[in-house]
């Protein structure tokens, strides 16, 4: 690190600033336009994780950010390097994950000339970044990096891309760290509140529900949420990304809401007289048909981003701010709750759900994905950081792995990006080396980014991988089964022998075909540094309950009762 004013190249200024921002690791892939930066990197205390595809770099930075709460950094060259980042940037944008992507750009004199490997990456990423910057002079590197970090981490977090031309990396400048400080006042945004007094609504409610989203975790509001729920005796329903923000074992935690949410949760939402939405955004996957959504309920919406107010669901009261701050301000005014009638009613709603639960199916020789995940939860004592991909296994994970603490479930919710899990898990493990990190991934999604197994091995990282192998693009197959007369267009998928594949990379590999083998295989994997288990599960199992897209939230397709199912077998 340098003292206050010093002559550096733009490339040196880049790393100097990153180090001062607290960065110790970056995920990247070199190339011509970013070469000066890579050369300068060797002189700074930075760990570089060489990815196998730049999409992986962005997911790793994202996984790192979600696991640690710190800003993740991805680096790529111009042109194809930069365009490969697009999916990962969009994923981070949809889930409000703070990452900074640094791309090399052709020399500033060549910009606009269709030079070799020139791509207008700031233009391309305009709608999928929180902000992006093009840097064409060495002197602008430091202010750009400092601004990027401030923007990525403050307010509603999100991805920021900094595109740095080759001449800006090679040119020299006086690095003035203090002078490069971002104008925080200029970045501040007016907050606003509108509608009814939320305290009055809460204190008057007899059937209130809290809907807890990602904002709880992003805002560090877990304790404030628990204090409010307990004081006012309000049950809490979770969004997919909210999971971990409130302990699964807490008596007031109802479980997940939405398309594959628990039946009683969705029914309770429809019956509630007040919804207190905290750091969630009424995504269509949680509301179902918006016209019939929670018609009996007044709605309070707390979010750091006023853009979310009245975007899809009309609310009666909107409060902008960091959830924790808002809840702490509410606390003294919230009346102590006595809502046992309502809570008892919800318990009753669970009704036959327990009977229908797949956990109660006898071990009939079939291996169900839900069994695998439930066993994994039990064996890891619910303490692993689980990183999932997208599809059926993702929903089963959310249903059957009980998360007690924040940042223990990492998953692509908003964009639903297949291929996310393995690279995001690598990022999570780099960020939290002491955590037991498990990937839960489908055989489809795994094949999208499995090249990152090489990254895992090169970096000597201990990540365990559970491939939930059903031989189908399962979630799509399920839609075809339910809504397209079982016409399985392009959903049967083959793959390699995953255990052998893992072994060829130098990882422990195993294959499991019956429930009886699950515990042993997981126990062995836990002892190895890096392991993959290929779970050959029931091929045509479906995720229940399911609210068909656009249907009313309480019009769920339920799992046929086990008796019926056993009879059909």
């Amino acid at each position: 690190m340098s003292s206050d004013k010093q002559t550096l190249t733009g490339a040196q200024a880049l790393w100097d600033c990153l180090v001062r921002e607290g960065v110790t690791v970056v995920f990247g892939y070199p190339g011509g336009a970013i070469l000066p930066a890579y050369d300068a990197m060797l002189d700074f205390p930075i760990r570089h994780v060489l990815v196998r595809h730049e999409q992986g770099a962005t997911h790793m930075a994202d996984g790192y950010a979600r696991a640690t709460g710190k800003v993740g950094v991805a680096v790529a060259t111009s042109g194809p390097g930069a365009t490969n980042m697009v999916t990962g940037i969009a994923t981070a944008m949809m889930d409000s994950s703070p990452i900074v992507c640094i791309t090399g750009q052709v020399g500033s004199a060549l910009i606009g000339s269709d030079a070799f490997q020139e791509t207008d990456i700031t233009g391309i990423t305009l709608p999928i970044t929180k902000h992006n910057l093009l840097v064409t002079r060495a002197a602008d590197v430091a202010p750009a990096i400092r601004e990027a970090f401030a923007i990525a981490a403050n307010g509603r977090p999100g991805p920021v891309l900094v595109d740095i031309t080759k001449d800006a990396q090679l040119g020299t400048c006086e690095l003035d760290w203090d002078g490069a400080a971002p104008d925080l006042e200029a970045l501040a945004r007016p907050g606003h509140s509108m509608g009814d007094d939320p305290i009055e609504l809460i204190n008057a409610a007899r059937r209130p529900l809290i809907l807890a989203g990602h904002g709880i975790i992003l805002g560090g509001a877990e304790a404030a949420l628990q204090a409010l729920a307990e004081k006012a005796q309000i049950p809490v329903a979770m969004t997919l990304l909210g999971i971990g923000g409130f302990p699964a074992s807490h008596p007031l935690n109802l479980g997940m809401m939405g398309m594959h949410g628990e039946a009683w949760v969705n029914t309770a939402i429809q019956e509630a007289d007040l919804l207190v939405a905290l750091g969630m955004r009424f995504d269509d996957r949680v509301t179902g048909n918006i016209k019939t959504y929670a018609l009996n309920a007044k709605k309070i919406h707390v979010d750091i981003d006023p853009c979310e107010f009245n975007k899809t669901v009309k609310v009666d009261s909107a409060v902008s701010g960091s959830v924790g701050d808002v809840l702490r301000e509410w606390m003294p005014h919230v009346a102590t709750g006595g809502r046992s009638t309502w809570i008892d009613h919800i318990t009753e709603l669970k009704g036959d759900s327990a009977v229908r639960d797949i956990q109660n199916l006898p071990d009939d020789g079939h291996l169900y994905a839900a069994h695998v995940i439930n066993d994994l939860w039990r064996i890891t004592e619910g303490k692993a950081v689980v990183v999932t991909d997208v599809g059926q296994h993702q929903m089963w994970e959310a249903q059957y792995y009980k998360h007690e603490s924040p940042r223990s479930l990492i998953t692509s919710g908003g964009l639903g990006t297949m291929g996310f899990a393995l690279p995001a898990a690598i990022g999570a493990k780099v960020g939290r080396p002491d955590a037991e990190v498990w990937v839960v991934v489908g055989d489809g999604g795994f094949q999208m980014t499995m090249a990152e197994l090489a990254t895992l091995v090169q970096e000597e990282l201990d990540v365990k991988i559970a491939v939930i192998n059903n031989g189908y693009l399962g979630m799509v197959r399920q839609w075809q089964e339910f809504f397209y007369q079982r016409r399985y267009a392009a959903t049967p998928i083959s793959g390699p022998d995953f255990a052998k594949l893992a072994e060829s990379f130098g990882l422990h590999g195993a294959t499991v075909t019956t429930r009886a083998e699950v515990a042993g295989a997981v126990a062995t994997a836990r002892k190895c540094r890096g392991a993959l288990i290929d779970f050959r599960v029931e091929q045509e199992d479906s995720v229940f309950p399911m609210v068909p897209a656009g249907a009313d939230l309480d019009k769920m397709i339920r799992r046929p009762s086990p008796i019926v199912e056993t009879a059909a077998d």
Partner: protein
Amino acid sequence: MQTFAVYVDNKPGVLNRVASLFRRRAFNIESLTVGHTETPGISRMTIVVDTDERGGRLVVANLYKLIPVRRVDNITDVPTIVRDLALIKVSATGDARTQVMQLVDVYRARIVDVSPESLVIEATGTEDKIDSLLEVLRPYGVGEMVRTGRVEMARGTTTPARRGARATVVGLDDAGAGSV
């Protein structure tokens, strides 16, 4: 219709960011004008959007997400002065020419160029006034026309947009419930 005065950093690409936002969120821009302000480095846009009050709130909130946006005022319901400027080329000779010149007088417009075959008229006023002038000129043959689009300013005393001014957002604080 909702009208916004938007103060932005005068940097390359800002118009693109604003336009991209409206496209992505499917808001229809009715008119957009940009010009310098009294503060160096800050430009002002007057944007008219085809939406209702609720949409207007979303427009304000979304504009504030753009980093170069310093301040947004929804001036739809604020008493304002609205002006549109038009240059209209009318082909008029002989009698017609006299009639056109009389109309120009009635509308308090000005003739700014004269050639044997045509006149160029400069008119300033509300959009309605310009529309109505155009209507009466059309029978004579409007050859060419250019309009600035609506520029608008609140009446009375207003605070100039300082860099990073933490603005109150007109039209948003309905009840001021809760806390921020």
